[in-house]
């Protein structure tokens, strides 16, 4: 049975999640003690800033209690304190949870792409630690491929939902390819730096305008692999720039309508994308009326992010039903691996053979007394039972640790089932 124990942004505040986090380098040793202490034959630990979850395959029934205890003991927290934040899921519910997490349907930001990578990393770490067997491996393959399908076949991962990515996406909607485009940074806040970094990663070149502290501009330019320029060259730089990110702390307008008009003379009709992240705003709002000039302030970017998130939410239903289909398939596959039907079949086959052979020789045996009849039955049944006993025990044993479809197939072939 698959077991999930964990906390997430839905059930626990950040400090609890932080307290329960597993640093990546501790994973091998944590996985080992987890399996030993909690009675799991397979285990995987997913630890991100939004969730800490243990996926396991129960070898013993005590696991359902032992895994929460392990979490508490490992992190030196009293279990009672954790209890209200913990969720413990088993069987189908656990499987559904794992699939939904990988597909980013349970994420804080619906459809965010990082979780799938984190999930893959977690499985990989478990694999390296030798904690992965056939069951969790199958869960991994199915849930990861379901997540990929959900991303490619529905729109849950489409359109940026963070302000800095929205800026990049808008730039793409204007310029298409960003390679070779010039980004001009006027002032530097945290968010503008983030947006500039995304743009540079996409191939854009950065120029940083320095104010009173030119050294800071040079430092920033170096970090972005670009160049620094004095603030006085604003108009020249505006003529060269394709994207301008302005985020000075100035209490007044920094980029005036005249500046942009001046710059347009040398621009040859190329569009200009102005991103004004400053509060109060740096760019004269009138500029937006000019042909080929696109001005977005912080509120505009937030509005786009929200609109994008609404688009994603509309796609969530489609993604849910796609993932549900994959879950059903996984459950059906798991059921096919169940040893009980296999053993029943094996026993039935043996019984049929015994009966058929007895019927054949009945004539030659002549009439038997009820006692004799009983003795023949008992003897033949004993032969069958004794022959089948070791394989039955072995199959049951195999099913406890990593029993696979191939094993089932082999058993079927050996016994002609």
């Amino acid at each position, binding site marked *: 049975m698959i077991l999930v124990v964990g906390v997430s942004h839905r059930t626990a505040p950040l400090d609890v999640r932080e307290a329960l986090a597993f640093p990546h380098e501790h994973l091998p040793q944590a996985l080992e003690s987890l399996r030993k202490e909690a009675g799991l034959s397979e285990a995987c630990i997913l630890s991100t800033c939004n969730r800490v979850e243990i996926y396991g395959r129960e070898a013993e029934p005590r696991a359902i209690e032992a895994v929460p205890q392990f979490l508490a003991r490992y992190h030196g927290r009293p279990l009672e304190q954790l209890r209200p934040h913990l969720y413990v899921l088993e069987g189908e519910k656990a499987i559904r949870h794992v699939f939904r997490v990988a597909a980013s349907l349970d994420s804080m930001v619906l459809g965010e792409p990082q979780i799938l990578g984190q999930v893959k990393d977690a499985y990989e770490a478990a694999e390296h630690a030798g904690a992965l067997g056939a069951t969790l491996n199958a869960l991994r393959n199915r849930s990861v491929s379901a997540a990929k399908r959900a991303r490619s076949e529905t*729109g849950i991962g*489409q*359109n940026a939902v963070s302000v800095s990515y929205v800026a990049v996406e*808008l730039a*793409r*909607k*204007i*310029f*298409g*390819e960003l390679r070779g485009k010039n980004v001009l940074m006027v002032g530097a806040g945290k968010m503008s730096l983030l947006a500039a970094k995304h743009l540079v990663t996409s191939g854009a070149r950065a120029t940083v305008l320095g104010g009173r502290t030119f050294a800071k501009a040079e430092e920033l330019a170096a970090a972005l692999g670009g160049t620094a320029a004095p603030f006085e060259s604003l108009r020249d730089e505006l003529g060269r720039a394709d994207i301008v990110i302005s985020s000075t702390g100035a209490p007044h307008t920094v980029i005036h309508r005249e500046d942009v008009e001046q710059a347009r003379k040398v621009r*040859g*009709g*190329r*569009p200009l994308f102005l991103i004004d992240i400053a509060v109060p705003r740096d760019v004269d709002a009138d500029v*937006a009326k000019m*042909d*080929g000039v*696109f001005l*977005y302030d912080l509120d*505009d970017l937030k*509005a*786009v992010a929200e*609109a*994008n998130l609404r*688009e994603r939410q*509309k796609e969530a239903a489609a993604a849910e039903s796609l993932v549900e289909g994959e879950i059903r398939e996984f459950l059906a596959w798991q059921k096919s691996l169940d040893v009980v039907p296999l053993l029943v079949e094996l026993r039935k086959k043996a019984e049929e053979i015994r009966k058929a052979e007895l019927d054949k020789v009945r004539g030659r045996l002549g009439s038997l007394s009820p006692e004799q009849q009983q003795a023949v039955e008992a003897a033949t049944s004993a032969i069958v039972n004794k022959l089948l006993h070791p394989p039955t025990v072995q199959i049951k044993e195999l099913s406890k640790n990593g029993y696979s479809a191939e094993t089932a197939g082999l058993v079927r072939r050996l016994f002609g089932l």
Partner: protein
Amino acid sequence: MGSRVYLLLTLAFYTVGAVHVVLQALLKRKLLSNALLTATLVGFALHTAGLSQRWTEAGRFPVAGVHDACSFLAWATVLGFLTTYLRTRVDALGLAVYPTAFLLVLVSNLTQPVQPDPALAGALFPVHAALAFIGYAALFVAWAMGIFYLVQERELKRRTPLSFYYLIPSLERCDTISGQAVLLGFGLLSLAITSGMALAHQSLGRYWLWDAKGITALVAWALYVILLVTRWRAGWGGRRQALLGIGAFTAVVLVFVIVATLGGSAAMAGAGAPRP
């Protein structure tokens, strides 16, 4: 199978395409799927077979009259779309092409073919007509991309993304594809005019006919020269180029329609290009 059966089957495929893209656009979903593209290719193949059948039936290259002209124009438009899509993967173009192809094939299905003018014989004529029609298809692509440019620009200016923001490619893409399509369309139109002049000289002994088609061709040609020159100087087409591209093509279409309604059987054989 007769050419009309092919045409009816083609209509079925293009109808599916038109309904599909419109529905997908309303649902804000991905416009094209592999299944739809396959259906389009099958429809296009049937259309091609139908045209070839019609050619055999008529005994001459069939572009005369509304029936044949619409059919061939639809064929050229779908060809233009498939070529553009394979090169650029811009699926928004389907939004313009599928309904257009559907309408043209519908009109073609509803009209009776006319017997081509015997004057339209000769090996050069099919070449001339194909150049003109494919040229117009390219200019249609440019027209559609120009409209997309304006719509996308409006979405970006408004700062609140609506459905078109998601469907339509970037301004740069619209601008580039539109520019390339104009260049190609212009080139083909020039060749069509040249071959038309050769044809006119061959059968009438004159190089130029000052009829509606001749004038339109000249006007269209001049408009696109202006467009290309200003574009070449500016580098980026932008809003003005988009408007020019839309205006030029709209003018061409208007004359095309006027000529088709006023003119005789052969009027549509190569509207915009002089023909005997």
